[in-house]
């Protein structure tokens, strides 16, 4: 049966093109794959190949014709032995479809309302009940215990990274794990962040539950393609068939006097991306409870620690059943005049600021975000509805930062409750300097928080 040859789309953006040259004439036999014409697209001159074998019965669009719309019949192909009289009855086959730039080919969905993004549900937590029996631990020890407990209960969990095994961890967070679990499950990698992050993603695809330690998150920039493109997006790209049950963890943010390439907060980088969860605890209890939750979580979790905090001690529940849910902020100090949000090391500074503010008669409520993505907006909004003022704190740069996101959320959900513009306390907009005095100036300090709070309270 004769068929019409249609003007093809030859690039993702082509809607029309010039039929530059016919490489065949009427009466010529062609085989599948033979070049029959040249077409100038918006990008280049392309060859058009015959899809079926047959005889060119009629050329419908002459060479040199400009602006031929995609899917216009340009020739009629006859089957071998078919008479040229079949030309007139040639169906426009195969069923022409709209070009890429036009309406979608499928029946358009009935004018349904646009789908609404689900709001992250803040999980319930029974964490408080475990504080009846506590021990004092450093964050370093709490993180180690979290990994050890999860490795004992699930043999799919393993730890890999630079110096995690024989050296016992560059910051000694993995101390003792090699001795307990052996070198099959505690794996020293070469210095090869891009490679081992990708390898760990593959291990997660294969059903394991990797805990990848970056010596610092600064080095994870070498691996960020795998974190975003391979780990975070696969569940979506696979239509839910598979994903990455894994944790990327390590110190984040400024340490002390290590200069620009080793002092940066990556919270907003990762919090930007759907498909990831991002956690950044302050206390040892939260570090342990959240790391246990992260290791059990079937999604890729970015776990941002802080080098300066590793040696600080806190009360940590003794029970191994204690966990902290991802996605739930915590009010660490109640107050009535202003809400201060912070995460990681800035929580300590916010608490110190609140103490100073109390001396000046200002009652500040301090929220430890704990999880950056999904952000517990409900807790922040509820607090702002009581205090009517908000100061956000982060070590990272303000531009496109966590404070910017919180300010937008609060404007969206509690605009009428605000008695003052939201103030952001953040790192100065400079690469981290080395000189002690400049570094001090670049990082947000307790005094900056105090000043910001007084400003939103209109207290000079």
């Amino acid at each position, binding site marked *: 049966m004769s068929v019409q040859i249609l003007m093809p*789309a*030859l*690039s*993702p953006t*082509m809607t029309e093109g010039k039929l530059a040259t016919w490489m065949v004439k009427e009466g010529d036999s062609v085989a599948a*794959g033979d070049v029959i014409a040249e077409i100038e*697209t918006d990008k*280049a001159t*392309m060859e*058009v190949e015959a*899809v079926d074998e047959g005889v060119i019965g009629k050329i419908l669009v002459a060479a040199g014709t400009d602006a031929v719309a995609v*899917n216009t019949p340009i020739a009629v192909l006859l089957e071998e032995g078919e008479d040229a009289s079949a030309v007139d009855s040639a169906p426009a086959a*195969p*069923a022409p*479809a709209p070009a*890429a730039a036009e309406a979608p*080919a*499928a*029946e358009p*969905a009935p004018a*349904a309302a*646009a*789908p609404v*993004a*689900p709001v992250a549900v803040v999980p319930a937590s029974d964490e408080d009940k475990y504080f009846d029996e506590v021990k004092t631990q450093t964050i370093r020890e709490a993180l180690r215990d979290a990994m050890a407990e999860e490795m004992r209960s699930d043999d799919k969990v*393993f730890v890999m990274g630079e110096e995690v095994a024989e050296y016992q961890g560059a910051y000694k967070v993995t101390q003792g794990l090699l001795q307990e679990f052996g070198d099959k499950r505690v794996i020293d*990698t*070469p210095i*090869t962040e*891009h*490679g*081992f992050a*990708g*390898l760990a*993603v*593959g*291990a997660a*695809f*294969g*059903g*394991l539950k990797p805990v990848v330690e970056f010596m610092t998150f600064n080095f994870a920039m070498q691996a960020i*393609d*795998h974190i975003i*493109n*391979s780990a975070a997006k*696969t*569940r*979506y*790209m*696979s*239509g*839910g*068939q*598979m994903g990455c049950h894994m944790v990327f963890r390590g110190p984040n943010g400024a340490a002390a006097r290590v200069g620009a390439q080793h002092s940066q907060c990556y919270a907003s980088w990762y919090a930007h991306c759907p*498909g990831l*969860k991002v956690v950044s605890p302050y206390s040892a209890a939260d570090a342990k409870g959240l790391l246990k939750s992260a290791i*059990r979580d*079937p*999604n890729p979790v970015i776990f941002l620690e802080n080098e300066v905090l590793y040696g600080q001690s806190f009360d940590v529940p003794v029970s191994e059943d204690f966990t902290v849910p*991802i996605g739930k902020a915590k009010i660490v100090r109640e107050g009535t005049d202003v809400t201060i949000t912070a995460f990681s090391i800035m929580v300590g500074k916010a608490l110190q600021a609140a103490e100073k503010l109390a001396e000046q008669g200002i009652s500040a409520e301090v929220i430890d975000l704990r999880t950056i993505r999904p952000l517990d907006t409900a807790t922040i909004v509820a607090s702002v509805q009581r205090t009517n003022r908000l100061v956000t704190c982060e070590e990272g740069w303000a531009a496109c930062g966590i404070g910017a996101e919180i300010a937008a959320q609060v404007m969206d959900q509690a605009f009428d409750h605000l008695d003052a513009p939201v103030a952001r306390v953040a790192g100065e907009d400079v690469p981290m300097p080395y000189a002690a005095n400049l570094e001090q100036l670049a990082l947000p300090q307790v005094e900056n928080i105090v000043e910001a709070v007084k400003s939103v309270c209109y207290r000079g």
Partner: protein
Amino acid sequence: MFTDALLRSKGREMAQAKSAAGAGRSTPTRTRKSRAAKPPKNNAAELLPFYRDMLLIRRFEEKAGQMYGMGLIGGFCHLYIGQEAVVVGMQSAIGKGDKVLTSYRDHGHMLACGMDARGVMAELTGRIGGYSKGKGGSMHMFSREKDFYGGHGIVGAQVPIGAGLAFANKYNGTDQVSLTYLGDGALNQGQVYETFNMAALWKLPVIFIIENNKYAMGTSVTRAAAGVSLYQRGAAYGIPGAEVDGMDVVAVQEAAEKAVKHCRSGKGPYILEMKTYRYRGHSMSDPAKYRTKDEVNKMRQEHDPIDQLRATLLEIGVAEEELKGIDREIKAIVTDAADFAQSSPEPDPSELFTDILVEA
């Protein structure tokens, strides 16, 4: 010296692979190896599935190109036409539980893994019946059931992931292997060498299959690679490599079996450089002006993997009518897949927000 000895041994392997390739069609008395029974190499019953599988890929890709031309497939679409023998030969050497992954030129690999032509084509058209519900597209498809782990759009990124699948195989105490495909272009990515190092260091059961089709988009191997013996790129890590005629499915199968045996026995990774060729442009919008028509025509006429096997089959007495029957069967499968891919609805708008995270 160790290095010299290593290279010499690679040279021998290469020579063997080459002679096997050269003998592929003209020696009908050769015997074929497989993990189980070992029927004679000219056994039509064993060669016919190769013909069928390669033809399915060829016709599927031709149809995909046609549907792209009709505006039914959007974005990027990289066709595998010309390279069919590589994936079909490799697949014949592995079994259930062995893992496969590749880059963005992935339709052939999925069909070879036994994924349904309907589901692949419907993904190309962005419909709910596609393997990723229309949310992945040509470059991003997966099937855990068929041990296919993507479909990766970032050049070279699949390489450490493939080694990670091998790591999981080894961790779980299986003898399963990971077939990790990459192109001659990807071979210049740094993460490939990070992976070679770890795979060799930890003796991971991964076969790196370099599909050297001579062009990384528009840049020929000779313009991009310092040293064009790509199978030797693992020599510094002690990874054995062999060069294979990737247009000869039997030569591919023989090389694959050797590599798989090496991996299964715990000796670590293996590199196979498949000398192959893609007839079409890099993607649908590539006019392919970086090579001559004569070059393409010469490959098609003298080295086409399907034509070569067809000639062998006729030579050993397979009836033309039987091959035509296969042609008809394949045409029906591809037509059905194309129909399905056009009739399957677009994903419901509510799918926009699904499959991002799963409940903890």
